[in-house]
């Protein structure tokens, strides 16, 4: 079976799931079975098939599972958002159409993605500007600087910035990695690179710390720094760099964390969310934990759980959510994973984590197969930052790490998140197509693969 036929086949269960999900929500809502869910499933399938046909023409050799896995995440996201609020689901669906258009534009415009290497400093500058944008415009949300208002549209620049930063790091490390990987000295079992080569590591570490100061967001800086360390490890094969980097990050985060009240408060909540007289923000994580516990093994069923209370939940509710009677804060964005756990249970939640794990596996496989250094690092970096983002928000909601407001890729409501992740997926598929294209000397091996 060819790669594209596999992809088409994989889209079938996705369509089945989206239909079943909508049907379940309809049944709970109106206590009757309607064929409307079939219509919704049909629309979703039509969009996916359109994208699939586009891929069939432009990237015939790309990885067959990346797109269906992402579509599955989008499907689960749509169902859950629809369950929360119809209007939001309509907005999200429209954003997906826009995202798919940009997905196609990226694939057409960057047919040879190596041009990105040429503009790396420009891309890096754009990325940094995007990151500090919210700080410049002084747009504060819950004590962190996360979004920029452009007229009626508010967007989260960190989502796009992550792609820019990964492109820059990939092209930089592809060129400089031999300088970093040639061994120097061994001290107490650790390989210490010559001091002059520590420069870039220190610069990026400094940038991550600055991010922590300016954006006041531990999760995002962890996400960016983690992706950097992953890339550094892929480029140099020196695990000691990762250890040193992590130690430096932990130290810096600890020192800064005690200085910046917002970060400090998040940390306190994480340590003990049920502390009497604890910080006011602790209610978020408390509700999230209760909601997840409510899910049990198999969940309450889609649409069955108690998500809204009659009457206002908190009179001074600051969440920009249509109904403030919501039991969970921001159930459609940051806490969507808690809603999934509540309605689909432990098994559903683990399923979602498995989807992310499989996407990461496909991404790293792409990196392994990629023909040149930049492609390898680009695929590895994009995969790493995608997986880390999922880790940061799932970890935050389940109280594994201090909570940070990043979106759950492809699932959360949010235009910039969907658009940025679509572009990320397009780049991964571009690398994948180049990597899996049969070459004369590898024809026999790939012939076997296609069987």
């Amino acid at each position: 079976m060819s790669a594209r036929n596999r992809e088409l086949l994989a889209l079938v269960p996705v369509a089945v799931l989206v239909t079943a999900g909508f049907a379940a929500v309809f049944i709970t809502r109106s206590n009757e079975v309607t064929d409307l869910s079939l219509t919704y499933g049909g629309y979703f399938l039509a969009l996916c098939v359109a994208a699939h046909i586009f891929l069939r023409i432009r990237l015939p050799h790309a990885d067959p599972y990346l797109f269906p896995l992402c579509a599955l995440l989008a499907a689960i996201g749509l169902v859950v958002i629809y369950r929360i609020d119809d209007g939001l689901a309509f907005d999200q669906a429209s954003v997906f159409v826009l995202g798919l258009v940009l997905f196609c534009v990226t694939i057409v415009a960057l047919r040879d993605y190596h041009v990105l290497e040429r503009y790396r400093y420009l891309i890096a500058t754009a990325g940094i500007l995007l990151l500090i944008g919210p700080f410049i415009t002084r747009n504060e949300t819950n004590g962190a600087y996360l979004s920029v208002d452009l007229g009626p549209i508010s967007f989260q620049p960190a989502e796009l910035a992550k792609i820019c930063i990964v492109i820059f790091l990939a092209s930089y490390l592809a060129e400089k990695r031999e300088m970093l990987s040639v061994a120097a000295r061994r001290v107490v079992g650790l390989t210490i690179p010559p001091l002059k080569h520590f420069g870039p590591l220190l610069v990026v570490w400094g940038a991550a710390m600055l991010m922590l100061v300016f954006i006041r967001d531990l999760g995002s800086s962890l996400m960016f720094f983690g992706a950097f360390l992953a890339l550094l490890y892929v480029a140099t094969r020196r695990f000691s760099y990762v250890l040193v980097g992590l130690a430096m990050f932990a130290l810096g985060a600890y020192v800064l964390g005690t200085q910046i009240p917002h970060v400090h408060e998040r940390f306190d909540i994480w340590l003990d969310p049920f502390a009497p007289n604890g910080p006011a923000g602790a209610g978020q994580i408390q509700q999230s934990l209760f909601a997840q516990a409510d899910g049990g093994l198999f969940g309450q069923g889609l649409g069955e759980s108690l998500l809204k209370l009659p009457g206002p939940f908190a009179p001074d509710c600051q969440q920009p959510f249509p109904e403030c009677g919501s039991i969970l804060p921001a159930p459609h964005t940051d806490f969507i994973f808690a809603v999934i756990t509540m309605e689909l249970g432990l098994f559903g939640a683990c399923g979602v984590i498995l989807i992310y794990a499989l996407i990461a596996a496909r991404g790293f496989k792409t990196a392994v197969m990629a023909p040149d250094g930049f492609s390898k690092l680009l695929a590895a970096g994009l995969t790493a930052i995608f997986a880390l983002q999922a880790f940061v928000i799932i970890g935050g909601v389940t109280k594994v790490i201090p909570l940070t407001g990043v979106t759950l890729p492809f699932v959360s409501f949010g235009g910039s998140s969907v658009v940025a992740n679509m572009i990320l997926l397009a780049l991964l598929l571009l690398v994948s197509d180049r990597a899996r294209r049969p070459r004369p000397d590898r024809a026999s091996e790939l012939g076997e693969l296609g069987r």
Partner: protein
Amino acid sequence: MDTEPIAVALKFGFLAVLYLFLFWVSRSALRELRRTSAPAPEATGFHATAGPGGRSAATDASLVAVHGGGLSPGDRYDLFGGLSIGRSTEADVRIEDRFASSIHARLYSRGASYFVEDMGSTNGTFLNGTALEGEAELADLDQIKIGDTEMRFELELPGDG
């Protein structure tokens, strides 16, 4: 109409389809992994490989063992990404030579050229018989001597292989 059984069926059906799908994807991924295990001894093909006569795909220059150092004559080391030579286990090319330092010298590329650099060794690195000071550019078939170990630098010209 009582929709309760349908709701329950949908709830478990959703999870069942989800897991079957994930199982299918991971099974094909595993199968693919087994099939592609053959080509590169070092999976990424990214770092220098030291297999006997082994050349990885991206090579365009290599270091060939001539004699001594516990290397079999004719061994090739891919210079893609640079490599270090020395007595320690940390060196990319490990030589058993009592005159060699733990990291004795390194070879790397800058732009289109390859260079050899002495890493402050005790007994020095010799390029075509003359002691090396700092770094020097390498030409095709240059001889590199460390202690009693001799090696040769080979450029692969286009169309060579």
